[in-house]
């Protein structure tokens, strides 16, 4: 659709007004909020005060936004080391909600919200939904897990504040998800993209054609996904698939979201100040250059984080978006520096393998990377589920597919892989973050 209007039908919600602030005004607002949050943290968080003192930096030294580079970083392990409440900047009497990460490695990381934080969170979720052309009248099936995980409640409060109708179905029970989607006339869904792919498959098995249902948008996040995955999702379900980005340490979902252009995610930077740094030198890099995303919560009160290293590799896109929003976009980030693995000295991101698999016609991104070590030699096996599209009736045809997939990966990462075709549904479907790598190496 190429109309005269740049917004291509993006609905405007009054809460979205900060998306369109003149840039000078936005920067002034960011600086003001930065100064306040640095002062708050310095006064109330001992770890932060100590690190600032060690570097000889005082809150008053922050005179421009560029001065942020003098402030020390915060990393994930700081949250674990100060488990559970060590980084809170507000007293418990002000804190209305606690969430925690899934905590795959030992203790979970805890995050806290004041009422003001909860309201800001809902507002950025409203802005996210509005950017996906959703509004009052929409029926949103929220299939993110409800609980300590921020996805469920984050999307829930946002959808309510938007004025939409929320179905708090939470994750799991795919058959019921599809039944409700049909019976309630759902127009949008929130879940992880891998879970939605699973729902598409299940619906097809049940004889339900999602393209004929009213559902028209999906707000997919909580795990990195690729443009190739979008190409698999959209034609099979008849929806527009939008990428939402967030992390619980910062607030949860709603840190950044795609608009109808579906080209980069707008960061709600009046609340979350983005920087891109070189992960080696830790120096900031200019917009347009790739590096690690570092975020500062400009308005969080319960647990502000200043210069939090996300480990997400992306870049800030230098051009203004045709949709008219002035807040900057980050490139879709399908790479996390921490699910990167090193094999035979080569850094590999699962998304690279996914991209290679998607080059071969008819394959779905249901795959598992298995790393093993045999006599000090690392081996990589990629298991890919066979789909009806690629399954011919002859051994030769299947062998052909297998080799095409193996070569596509080899060309991308430069390493020979063992490619195994497996039966459908044998790779575990996750309802949260998809597990892509099984590292069986005894290092």
């Amino acid at each position, binding site marked *: 659709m190429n109309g005269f209007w740049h917004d291509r039908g993006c609905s405007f919600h009054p809460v979205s007004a900060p998306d369109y602030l003149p840039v000078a005004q936005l920067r002034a607002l960011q600086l003001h909020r930065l100064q306040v949050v640095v002062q708050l943290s310095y006064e109330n968080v001992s770890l932060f005060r100590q690190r600032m003192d060690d570097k000889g930096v005082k809150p008053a030294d922050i005179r421009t936004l560029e001065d942020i580079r003098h402030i020390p970083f915060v990393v994930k392990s700081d949250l674990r080391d100060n488990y559970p409440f060590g980084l809170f900047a507000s007293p418990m009497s002000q804190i209305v909600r606690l969430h925690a990460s899934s905590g795959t490695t030992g203790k979970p990381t805890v995050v806290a919200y004041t009422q003001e934080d909860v309201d800001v969170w809902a507002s950025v979720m409203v802005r996210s939904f509005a950017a996906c052309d959703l509004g009052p009248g929409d029926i949103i099936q929220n299939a993110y897990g409800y609980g300590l995980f921020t996805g469920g409640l984050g999307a829930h409060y946002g959808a309510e504040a938007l004025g939409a109708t929320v179905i708090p179905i939470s994750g799991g029970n795919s058959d019921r998800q599809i039944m409700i989607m049909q019976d309630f006339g759902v127009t949008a869904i929130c879940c992880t993209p891998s879970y939605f792919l699973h729902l598409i498959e299940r619906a097809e*098995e049940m004889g339900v054609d999602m393209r004929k249902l009213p559902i028209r948008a999906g707000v997919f996040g909580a795990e990195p996904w690729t443009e190739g995955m979008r190409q698999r999702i959209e034609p099979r379900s008849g929806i527009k698939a939008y990428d939402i980005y967030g992390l619980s340490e910062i607030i949860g979902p709603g840190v950044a979201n795609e608009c109808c252009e579906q080209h980069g995610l707008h960061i709600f930077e009046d609340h979350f100040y983005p920087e891109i740094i070189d992960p080696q030198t830790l120096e900031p890099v200019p917009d347009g250059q790739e590096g690690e995303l570092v975020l500062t919560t400009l308005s969080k009160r319960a647990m502000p984080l200043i210069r939090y290293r996300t480990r997400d590799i992306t870049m800030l896109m230098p051009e203004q978006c045709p949709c008219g929003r002035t807040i900057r976009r980050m490139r879709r980030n399908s790479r996390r520096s921490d699910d990167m693995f090193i094999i035979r000295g080569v850094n590999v991101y699962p998304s690279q393998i996914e991209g290679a698999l998607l080059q071969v016609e008819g394959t779905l991104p249901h795959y598992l990377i298995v790393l093993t070590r045999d006599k000090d030699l690392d081996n990589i096996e990629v298991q890919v589920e*066979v*789909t*009806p599209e690629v*399954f*011919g*009736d*002859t*051994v030769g045809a*299947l*062998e052909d597919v*297998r080799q095409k997939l193996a070569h596509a990966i080899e060309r991308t990462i430069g390493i020979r892989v063992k490619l*195994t*075709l*497996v*039966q*459908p*549904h*044998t790779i575990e479907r996750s309802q949260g973050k998809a597990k892509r790598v099984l590292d069986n190496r005894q290092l």
Partner: protein
Amino acid sequence: MKIHQLSLFLENKPGRLSEPCRLLADAGINIVTLSLADTQQFGILRLIVRDWQQAKATLEQAGFVVNITEVVATEVADRPGGLADVLSIIEEGGINIEYMYAFTFRMGDKAVLVFRFNNPDAAVSLLQSKQINVISSVELYERAQQ
């Protein structure tokens, strides 16, 4: 005259063959004949059953990838040279055999050959013109029940 054959993708792992067979047994579907092609990595189980649509649905419901291919069944005398005679006809007709397998019924002196041709229709006309008995699916299922 063509027959619908089911092909299933199987991983080459212990126990993988029994599952589809069990599913069909539970659904009351009798297997007329089968063939298994395998590599180190995977296998393709090819089945001929009467209720192929129901078998396909049953197997797909259980998560298998099922492909339907048209094959041609012919009847030859169960004696030395029976197969070679048919193969010569096919060879001379310039028709390519992608794969084949053979079986016999409990009774009678005939063997049944199942062919996957690159061009099944041409193959059927060729075989019939040479007086080779091409068996229809109905006939095949009826024989299997005798």
